[in-house]
Each structure stands twice: as C-alpha cells, then as structure tokens.
C-alpha cells in the first residue's frame, strides 16, 4: 500500500497542530495571574503577621496556594482552567496540588489504602523523586564547595 516512512512523514506533516500563539498567550496570562495572586497572598500575610520572617511568609504563601489549588480541583474547576491555560496552570504550585488531588479523587472508589494512598502520586511521583534527588545532590555539592 504505502511505505511506512512515507506514511509517517505524511501524518506528521498533516496532523492538526495546537494554535501556538493562542496557547502561549493563555498560558502566559493565566500563569501570571496565578503568580500575582500568590504574591498578593504573601503581602496580606505580611500585613497581618508583621513579625514573621521573609522565609516563613513564603512557606505560608505556598501552603495557601496549595490549598486553593486543591479546593479548585475538588470543585471540578481546575481542569477547566487547565484545558484553557495548559502550562500556565500546570507549572505553578497549584498545578502540583492538582496533580496530587485529582488521582486521589479518581481512585477514591478503590478504597483508602490501595485506592487513594497508593494511587495519589501516580502523576506527581516523578516530580517528588526528582525534587528529592536534586536537592540531595545540591546539598552534597554545597557541603564541599561552600
């Protein structure tokens, strides 16, 4: 019929592609807005707790954003945002929360142990593995270098 190579080339040339400009603009805007919300929350925390150190404020800010991401996922809104914004809502910490909460919700029906607990990290697992590994490596290097 048709050669394998020829068909593969035909498909890769003709397959419909994502509209680059629209997706990039959407990702930029939504990602930016999520980060602005995060900064705003940090400022509010600073206003309320004046003695809090800069580092603690950043930690609390992340916690609030993770909470918001989880709540929006549970309400079924974060995936709609994701369909529109793509990377803009995946990259911030709210996206990480979404990637943990969504499988937990999905596998709820298989029970607590082998459902929620076992499957919670099917998406976020690689992020955690790489995060831990890289922080270990950097700590190791900085111990000798600095």
């Amino acid at each position, binding site marked *: *019929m048709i050669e394998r190579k020829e068909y593969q080339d035909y498909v890769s040339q*003709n397959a419909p592609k*994502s509209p680059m400009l629209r997706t990039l603009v959407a990702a930029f805007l939504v990602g930016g807005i999520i980060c602005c919300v995060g900064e705003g929350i940090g400022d509010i925390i600073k206003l309320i707790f004046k003695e809090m150190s800069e580092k603690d404020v950043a930690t609390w800010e992340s916690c609030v954003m993770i909470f918001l991401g989880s709540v929006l996922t549970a309400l079924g809104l*974060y*995936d709609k945002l994701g369909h529109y914004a793509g990377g803009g809502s995946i990259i911030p910490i709210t996206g990480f929360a979404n990637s943990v909460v*969504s499988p937990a919700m999905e596998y709820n*029906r298989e029970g607590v142990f082998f459902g929620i607990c076992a499957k919670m990290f099917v*998406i976020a697992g690689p992020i955690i593995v790489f995060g831990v590994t890289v922080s270990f490596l950097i700590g190791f290097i900085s111990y000798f270098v600095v």
Partner: protein
Amino acid sequence: MRTFRLKNPVYIKSGFTIVGPKEGDGNFGDCFDIVLHDDLWCEKSYEKCESKLQRDAIAGAIKKAGLERNDIDIMMGGDLLNELSSTSLAARNFPCAFLGLYNACSTFGEAMIVGSMLIDGGFAKNITCSTSSHYSSAERQYRFPLELGNQRQPTAQWTVTGAGCTVLSAEAPLRENSRVYEDDIVSVDEGMQLDEKELEKYKKSIEKQKKVINIDKSNIIEDNFSREYNDYMKPLSHYAVVTGGTIGRVIDLGIDDEANMGSCMAPAAADTILTHLTESGMDPSDYDGIFTGDLGRFGKANLEYLLSREGITLPTYYMDTGASYFTPEQKTFQGGSGAGCVNTVFNSYILKRLQRGELKRILVVPTGALLNKDTPLQKETIPGIAHAFTVESREF
C-alpha cells in the same frame, strides 16, 4: 480469502442504544432509545455505570425484538476495559451462553461478523452483539484522572459514553418493534446477582434512576413517538439483513502517538476496504452508504488519501461515525471514538434509515487501535484493525 458471503439471510431483529448526556447533544441526538442526564446513573463508579449501560442495552434490544431472554442462544460483546470487565459483569444477568470479544473499538464489527457466521452455519438462532464504552472509565484507564488540568491534543478523540446492542436472528423480524418501557430498563430483574442488602438499596434507587433518563430526548418515551427517527409503534417498511463482510488484518505503519489513533487505524481501514472491493468485485458506487468506525476527522482524511493513492475515490456520502458524532461546538477535536461509537450510530441512525428503506446496501467498517496503557511506554508502535460487514435493506 478474507471476504465472505453468507448463504442464508441473517436478519437484524432490533437495535437498542443508551448514551450519555454529551452524546445526546451531538448530531445523532434524536436517534437514540435512551439518553441520560448524568453519566454515573446512580452507580458508585463509572465502570459500574458502563456495565449497567451494556446490561440494559442488551435487555432493551431483546425486549424490542419481541423475544425473551431464554430465546437468546449466544451473547457476544466486548468493551475497552481491562479483561472485558463491564461486558462480563453485564453478562452475569442473563441465562445465555456468553462469548467475550476484544478488538478495541472494532469489537462491534467482530461481534457482527462472528454472530452472523454462527447463525448462517446453523449453530445458533438468536444472537446479541453488544459493546459499550464510557468516557470517564476509558480516560482513567488509558489516560489521566478526570480532574487533572492538562490539555488534550488537537488529534485527540473523545470516547463515546454509550452502549448498544443488535439482535441477530435466523428468523425474519416483526413489522413492528415491541415497545420498551422505562420499567423494563430500570427494574429489578430475576437474573440480577445481588445480595439482599444491595438489592434493597437498588430497589430504593429505582425512582432516582428513572429521573436520570432524559424524557425529552429518549425515543422510548411515549411523547416522542411522533418524531422522525422514532421506530416504536409504527410499522417498518423494510428490514435489514447482514449479507457478508471482510475480516480485517492487523496493520502497523509505525505510528506511536496514542493521541492520534485515527492515523493508526486509517491504514487498516484502507486495507480492509481495498480487500473487500477486490475480493467481492464490488465498486464503492454499488453501496449507497459507507460508514467507517471512529477514525475522526483527521483519520478520515488519511483514509481518503490512502485510498486515492490506490485509485479509489470514496463517494461523497461516505461518513465516519466518529467524525460526525459530535458538533464542532462540543470541542471534541477529532470527534468520537470507543467501542460504543460505531455501535450506537449503527443501532440508531443507520439501522433506522435501513428500516425506512432510505439505504439499500451499506458497508460498515468499524476500526480499532490495538494498544494498552503500557505498550506506548515500552516504545511499541500502535497497530490498527478494521472489519467490514455489509447490510442490505429489503422490503417486507
């Protein structure tokens, strides 16, 4: 020789379909027997719901054909879930012999071919061919959790939530379909394998389940009997007969993108159509309807390109059921897919047009992409398969 012609007429007694809400809003929305408001239908999981869709589609088709469950010799069916779980769980409600089949989204074609051969050979009198798929259970098995905020690719297709069942028979069908009531579908039937406690719960949820049926769109509701694509309570002018077909072979041209299944299946569809035309000596113009399974819009273009290289132009009435399933506003990108896609269209839209005599001879080519969740991760390419069967319409 992969093409066969049946010696005896194998009649299509009835077809019954149940679909989810998004499908009810699609292009074939007014053709289905039951459209649901909610794709969980009072069940605890989407898998359970899919199984229930299939169980009720089979029960509905048997009722619509005017048969009893004991009249069915063999049930044949399949779905997309691991180890055919939804079909097997549906089959436990019936006192019939059961054969589970799997050919991904082309399972319906496989069931129709095997079923009509068994009847033609005299090994069975009545056979049900059913398949089902569910968007949410397929997403979870093949892709990502529903609530994950990722983007679908422009080549992706939308798994149809729905189940359908055809009753094949060695006996000619009746001129009028038997009426199916809501109570036949949502009820406690004697074959139900439930413990007492669960049975009590089920009985309590029956009223709730009935409310999930969309009374504006479902054809089994009496108010809709006057609609154009409603086949209850009016005599049919024609009946449909399966006359032959071509069994497909597995074709792999090295596409490894699981989000582009139309391109994996198009070469298989092209091969089956070419083989069918050569071996049967037919021309595309001999058919007044050619329907492929779920290639999607891009896959359909691929098939047309592949066939045009062989000097075959498909007629303008050629339709891909997946590509035509949803409206562009529903944002499914390439259209519908899944084992329930071609099945629900065949048992509603196509069968009704055959029974009204609008189509005389058609070729249906369900297509399937043969993969599981692990094969693409193990760097395997995705082979495709397509089976073809021909159906003719004859006057009573």
